[in-house]
């Protein structure tokens, strides 16, 4: 039995703080990578290839999480990889959110022909298989940071549009919206001052979730070698390389994988936690 108020709210607090702490750590790593990374992430040393992490016998001092087949420091590469992951998360996440939520809000609140156009557009869009779509896009635009961000926006804006449309629609039917209009508000003003604050918790939750998804998509694209050029370290690229030598050097695969997993998990937990904090009714 779960009591919605007593039992579930407390762990949400813990999740919020844990996920927040992990993400703060990542931001710090990304900002200060040159200061805190023990080695140059690109420096190869063929004599130091596939050194295990520090607690395994035969580890090389100074290489805490071991080295990959080219002798590059795994820890340093993970720290530098955080840069790209976070840039993609922030930029692609916010852009996706802005475009999708705006269209969803307009469709759900104005209804009528704006809704018909936007909804039809969403339906058509969603008929494309998303990953194929992204690969096609990048094949056309060429790999690179900008292409990745555009690909993510193009794939995922419909998620925001659909969810926010539904929320705006149900808020729009409430009496307080009508009374705002009797008080002389314009429709556009009502949308911004009455509807938007009430869908904001959902937008925030979707946004953080989207940031996690953006990190995954970027990793997938790196994995299939469609991301940024291979010499700047990315978690997806590291996972792809680690996969080929998993029997000889599991750490090359496992550490970036764990980092990726924790990051995506943290984004989604942060979203849930923030939604509960923000939502005046649940608070």
């Amino acid at each position: 039995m779960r009591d919605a108020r007593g039992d579930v709210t407390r762990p949400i607090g813990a999740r919020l703080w844990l996920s927040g702490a992990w993400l703060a750590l990542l931001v710090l790593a990304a900002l200060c990578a040159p200061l805190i990374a023990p080695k140059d992430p690109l420096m190869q040393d063929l004599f130091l290839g596939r050194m295990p992490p520090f607690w395994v016998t035969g580890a090389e001092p100074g290489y805490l999480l071991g080295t990959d087949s080219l002798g590059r420091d795994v820890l340093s590469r993970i720290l530098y990889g955080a840069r790209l992951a976070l840039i993609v998360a922030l930029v692609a996440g916010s852009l996706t959110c802005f475009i999708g939520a705006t269209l969803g809000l307009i469709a759900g609140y104005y209804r009528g022909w704006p809704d018909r156009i936007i909804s039809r557009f969403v339906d058509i869009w969603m008929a494309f298989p998303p990953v194929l779509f992204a690969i096609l896009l990048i094949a056309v635009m060429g790999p690179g940071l900008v292409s990745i961000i555009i690909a993510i926006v193009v794939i995922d804006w419909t998620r925001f549009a659909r969810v926010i449309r539904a929320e705006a629609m149900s808020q729009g039917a409430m009496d307080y919206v009508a009374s705002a209009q009797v008080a002389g508000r314009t429709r556009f003003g009502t949308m911004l001052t009455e509807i938007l604050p009430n869908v904001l918790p959902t937008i925030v939750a979707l946004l953080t979730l989207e940031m996690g998804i953006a990190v995954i998509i970027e990793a997938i694209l790196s994995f299939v070698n469609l991301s940024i050029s291979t010499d700047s370290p990315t978690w997806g690229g590291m996972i792809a390389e680690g996969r080929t030598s998993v029997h000889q050097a599991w750490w090359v695969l496992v550490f970036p994988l764990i980092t990726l997993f924790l990051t995506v998990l943290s984004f989604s937990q942060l979203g849930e936690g923030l939604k509960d904090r923000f939502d005046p009714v649940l608070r």
Partner: protein
Amino acid sequence: MNSFLEVRNLNLSLKAGMPILRSVSLNVAAGQVHGLVGESGAGKSMIGKAVLGTLPRALQVTSGEIWLDGVNLNSLPTAERRKTIGAKAALIPQDPLTALNPSKRIGPQITRRLVDILGWQKSDAEARAVELLHEVHIPDPARVMKSYPHELSGGMRQRILIASAFAAEPKLIIADEPTTALDVTVQKQILRLIAEMQQRHDTALLFVTHDLGVVSKTCDTLSVLYAGKVIEEARMRRFFTRPIHPYSAALLKATPTYTNPRGSLTPVPQSVIDATEREVREHDMRASR
């Protein structure tokens, strides 16, 4: 007697075609209380929404006029119509749960009307809001102004909505079943409060309800609505002593009022309902000819 609100032959239908209101005419005199009774789904709320210009999108006015304080609302451009309605009329809603914005504090939700409609300064509006909350007997108004709706009980929220309805001193209040969503224990207090406010502010009141017992105590005149058609319009005394329409008579027999204080209640007979339905259908057929 001059009407403050006059609805003339209002026809309202679903965009798909089905009629919701059938040539509804209604007068509310300045400073008077007019009851609007009818069973659930009769179209009572839609009359209120048509007057306030907040009809759901699925509905449209097909013909008829609404006059407010001597002005034909249909003749005004949209922006001006909104302003006129906002300054002259206000709603006390049926459901105090959805009538307040859950993500905003109470204070701004009351002062908004004063700032938007009357162009008041924020600080003046806040002082006035506190005064209004006093007037509706809310203890500690300063604290309530800073609260969120979900922190307050249903009765408190309805008091706030009453205060907010009277804020800009409108001369018409539409109360749409203002106690239906409340606990029985607070219903009486809210009814008394509305009557008190109506008298003090000398407003006209269109009182929507399905409770004839309440009407008998509060109203001067009333209209009975059945399936979107006004089947009887009367002054109170006459209605309760000599109802004209058989449906009205049957309704009275089904209501514990002063004509029938403790006697047994008779459900509205099916034959009366059938006859009334037939009348409404014939009305539609005449109209379509």
